[in-house]
């Protein structure tokens, strides 16, 4: 581990000191003041300037009334500003709550009320927002100040939508961020010589990625398009060494009509959903570089990464990184069962309803819901899922949430939502609907869903059926995909 690790431990020993992740930037700025931290199409931001912007913006946040313990929503596109404002929120000891850009207004309102947000920082004006800078607005929500963090040094709450039966909001403390960065970098080995090509939404990926890279003095190049040509062109221009993208982006790269190569790249990581084998093969053949699948889980961090055999075992997420242990629970005769993980830097609590890590995993093992097997050499293979959550191109959709919307429509008696395997995007969303009366219209139902849900959660297909299978014992909707096996 590089220098700041020891520095951190010294600080942690001071009794009154609370770790704050802004120290990571301060430390990098001291060591590499002139080295580029972020590169965009039209700007290069050195570490010194980045740290100074964070200090300056933190002062502004205080002037706008942001206080320690506040929970502040961040609805902002990938940009230098995204990084500045998140670290500035940490600097004033507020908790950052990323809000994906694709969220509908109803979903944002749900996040505001369930997590008790104190303000939202956004790219576009909202309601009573005031402008802090061009393209940067703050909406004060005037919630009564209630520190819902139970004394925890909360850095981050990642909202995960779902139903009342699903816990919402994964809370991570600064200490946790620190621990999981150290654990992840034992595999990634990011250092100041690295340049990472970045295209995934920061609202979904930030800690063991952006924060980790900046803590190690790497340069991040923001690509404003995920299409193959700009991605390859940026990689060539900035001499990118690390790629972190989704299977679909790798498919575009592997099949692009372009003479550009990836000669400078030392590590290409595929994340967010299962990598189709033809994409892995075509990428490796074309660029003469392996494509490593990783397993990142918001509650845990980066648990597995296929560094050891990405070519011959490209369907594996690899071995666990050194600080993690993995185990198969309730294995069948073939050794398949639920993947459990133990290790450092796990989530601290679920924010709503409040539940601590110790309450959720008293034995220290987190049950991932993934059905997996581990081969004799320790490689983990994901085979399917125990839960019914649908993964479309890396976006998670909880069937119960979509069913609840469908069931509110006057022509719907009941509904069942499930995922259907798709060769390119992981899964599609399908729904079966039992109409309550004649005249139920599929397009009208989709329109109704669009008015209530983020657009990507609207079922791709709706089938009108006469009945939905239920379990005889409990009357719950029978989910034939309760154990979904990947094709």
């Amino acid at each position, binding site marked *: 581990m590089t220098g700041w690790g020891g520095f951190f431990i010294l600080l942690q020993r001071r009794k009154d000191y609370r770790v704050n992740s802004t120290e990571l930037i301060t430390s990098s700025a001291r060591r590499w003041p002139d080295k580029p931290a972020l590169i965009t199409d039209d700007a290069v931001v050195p570490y010194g300037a980045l740290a100074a912007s964070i200090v300056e913006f933190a002062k502004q946040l205080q002037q706008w009334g942001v206080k320690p313990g506040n929970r502040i929503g961040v609805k902002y596109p990938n940009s230098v500003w995204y990084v500045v404002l998140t670290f500035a929120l940490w600097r004033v000891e507020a908790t950052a709550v990323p809000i994906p850009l694709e969220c509908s207004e109803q979903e944002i309102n749900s996040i505001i009320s369930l997590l008790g947000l104190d303000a939202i920082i956004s790219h576009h004006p909202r309601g009573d927002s005031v402008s802090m800078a061009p393209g940067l607005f703050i909406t004060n929500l005037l919630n009564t100040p209630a520190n819902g963090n139970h004394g925890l040094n909360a850095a981050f709450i990642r909202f995960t939508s779902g139903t009342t039966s699903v816990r919402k909001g994964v809370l991570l403390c600064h200490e946790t961020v620190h621990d999981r960065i150290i654990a992840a970098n034992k595999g990634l080995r990011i250092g100041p010589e690295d340049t990472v090509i970045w295209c995934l939404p920061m609202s979904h990926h930030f800690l063991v990625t952006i924060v980790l890279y900046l803590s190690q003095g790497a340069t991040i190049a923001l690509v404003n398009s995920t299409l193959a040509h700009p991605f390859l062109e940026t990689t060539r221009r900035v001499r990118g060494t690390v790629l972190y993208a989704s299977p*679909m982006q790798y498919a575009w790269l592997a099949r692009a009509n372009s003479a550009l190569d990836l000669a400078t790249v030392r590590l290409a990581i595929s994340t967010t959903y299962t990598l189709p084998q033809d994409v892995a093969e075509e990428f490796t053949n074309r660029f003469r570089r392996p494509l490593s699948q990783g397993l990142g889980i918001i509650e845990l961090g980066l648990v597995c990464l296929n560094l050891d055999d990405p070519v011959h075992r490209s369907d594996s997420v690899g071995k666990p990184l050194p600080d993690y242990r993995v185990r198969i629970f309730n294995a069948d005769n073939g050794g398949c069962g639920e993947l459990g993980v133990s290790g450092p830097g796990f989530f601290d609590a679920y924010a709503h309803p409040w539940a601590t890590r110790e309450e959720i995993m008293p034995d220290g093992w987190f049950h991932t819901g993934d059905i997996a097997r581990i081969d004799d050499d320790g490689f983990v293979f994901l085979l399917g899922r125990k839960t019914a959550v649908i993964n479309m*191109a890396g976006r998670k959709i909880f069937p119960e949430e979509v069913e609840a919307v469908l069931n509110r429509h006057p022509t719907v008696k009941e509904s069942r939502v499930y995922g259907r395997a798709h060769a390119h*995007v992981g899964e599609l969303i399908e729904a079966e609907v039992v109409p309550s009366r004649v005249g139920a219209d599929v397009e009208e139902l989709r329109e109704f869903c*669009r008015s209530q849900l983020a657009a990507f959660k609207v079922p791709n297909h709706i089938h009108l059926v006469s009945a939905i299978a239920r379990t005889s014992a409990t009357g719950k909707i029978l989910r034939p995909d309760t154990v979904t096996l990947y094709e």
Partner: protein
Amino acid sequence: MSEPRDVEIQLLAFLRREVFSPQIIVSEDTDLVAAGFDSLSLVRLLLFVEQTYGLWIPESKITAEILRDVRSLAAAVCTLLHES
């Protein structure tokens, strides 16, 4: 066989209905990326084209040029449909 004009109309209706917010005015020659068309929009567009025309646009064809506006997108979809 689908004609470019019909495909344009269908794609425009889809984008207005399912991708862009009502405040954003989209026509055949609106710059899609400038209007806020992102990677998630692209995934949903690909699925719409697959569902409507039975065509998965090959990855090699997905370029900034065909995604420039609805007119070039519709032309590309029609060419691919004729080829298949």
